[in-house]
């Protein structure tokens, strides 16, 4: 009875309650975006509940995709085979030249007393099981979590290049912020030896598939088709991972800087399998060995390279 009386006294109670919820949500949005408020353990609980369903459904999706792509591959196999043979020949010649250059490089390095090291990575393979279809941020969910040794701030890559980094690691799933997300920023440099200009790659809201390289000085040596790699500054991303290629350069609104629009190395439309870098260390590189040639496609790259050189020399003499 008493509740009834109270209701009559305050007929707008419901409206006030709704208003209270709306205002608190509004506040939470800003606190969360500024990093002063974090979703409590609920977020991990939700991920844990969803993950078996997501794994099952993404497996079905993967099978469907596999069937359609296999049919397409079979239909185009003949044409592709021709193109690939051509490419293999060219790559073999290139490979030979590279190993010669590597040998020379090593000789010169020992001459100078340089210690040659490369970074080696320990990786965990993971499958993409969920993806956000909302429009303002770019996140994916992968099927590896703390139980596989994945932790926050680890870097996610594919064989093509950089994907993003882990922002939340649950027990058996993790959330990855892609480099397309407007909140993400990656320290990068231009790979070209004469340039090495540094800049920051950020996600762009205007063009969700093309991030921007910002903070480039107006007179900096950056041109279209330059390959952009991670610089290693900032601590999260190790040095030398390919991010993408500059597709066009625009002037910044301020007029002092320019912005490069990047075509990412990874095809984010078809992201299915990724790798998480769980540890990286410096180690001496392994010596290069020529790969085994497939039966029926053997070529002699040394002879072909010599031929190509002779042809080039002949042309230049003309």
């Amino acid at each position, binding site marked *: 009875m008493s509740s009834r009386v109270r209701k009559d006294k305050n007929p707008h109670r*419901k409206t006030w309650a*709704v208003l209270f*919820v*709306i205002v608190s*949500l*509004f506040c*939470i*949005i*800003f606190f*969360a*975006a500024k990093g002063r*408020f974090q*979703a409590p353990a*609920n*977020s991990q609980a*939700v*991920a844990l*509940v*969803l993950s078996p*369903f*997501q794994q099952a*459904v*993404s497996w*079905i*999706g993967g099978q*469907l*995709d596999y069937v359609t792509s296999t049919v397409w591959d079979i239909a185009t196999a003949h044409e592709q085979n021709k193109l690939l043979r051509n490419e293999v020949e060219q790559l073999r010649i290139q490979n030979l030249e590279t190993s010669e250059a590597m040998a020379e490089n090593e000789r010169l390095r020992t001459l100078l007393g340089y210690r040659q090291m490369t970074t080696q990575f320990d990786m965990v393979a993971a499958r993409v*099981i*969920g*993806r*956000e*279809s*909302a*429009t*303002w*941020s*770019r*996140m*994916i*969910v992968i099927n590896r979590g703390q139980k596989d040794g994945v932790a926050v701030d680890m870097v996610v890559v594919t064989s093509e290049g950089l994907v993003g980094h882990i*922002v*939340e690691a649950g027990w058996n799933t993790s*959330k990855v*912020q892609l480099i*397309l997300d*407007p909140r993400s920023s990656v320290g990068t440099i231009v790979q070209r030896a004469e340039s090495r200009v540094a800049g920051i790659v950020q996600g*762009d*809201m*205007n*063009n*969700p*598939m093309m991030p921007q390289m910002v903070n480039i000085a107006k007179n900096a040596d950056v041109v279209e088709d330059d390959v952009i790699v991670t610089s290693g500054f900032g601590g999260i991303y190790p040095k030398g991972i390919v991010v993408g290629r500059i597709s066009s350069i625009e002037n910044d609104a301020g007029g002092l800087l320019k912005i490069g629009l990047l075509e990412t190395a990874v095809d*984010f*439309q078809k992201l299915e399998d990724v790798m998480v870098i769980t540890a990286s260390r410096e180690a001496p590189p392994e010596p290069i060995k020529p790969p085994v040639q497939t039966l029926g496609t053997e070529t002699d790259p040394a002879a072909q390279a010599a031929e190509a050189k002779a042809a080039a020399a002949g042309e230049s003499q003309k």
Partner: protein
Amino acid sequence: MNKFGKLALFVIMLYVVQSSLLTLIAYHGIGPDLMLLLTVSYAFLRGMRYGGLMGFATGLLQELATGTFLGIHAFSQLLIGLFFGRFSDRVFKEQFFLPVFASVAAIVANYFILALLMVLLGYRFNLVGNMESMLVPMLIYQLAFAYPVHRFAYALDKKLSKKEKH
């Protein structure tokens, strides 16, 4: 399983389909937003109170599951659920035309609420270019998926309310 459990399972399954299966047909990373469609349908079927609640719950689920900006979807879908819930006693529940086309209005409203929040959060973008790349594909997807989602929500709601009466 009780009524709430069934509804929760339906929402979870719908979300899983949206995040795992429908991304295969997404265009430039933009796919149908089934959670918004469900909110609109539910608001039309059940009124302001449940519509708002459904919007809030599905929005929050989306944010906790993928980790976007916390609270933006819960906020926008709560408003949309409340707004469309107002019309629930003025349309026939068997009428499908209105909820389907209301979902188009809902997606536009949702887009502008989120765009405003993004501007308030300090992200700058070109509205016309952004609308072309985001709003247009989203509208097409929403129109295609509005009818089946509403149909499902209607069937489920009918089943659950029938049990309630017995």
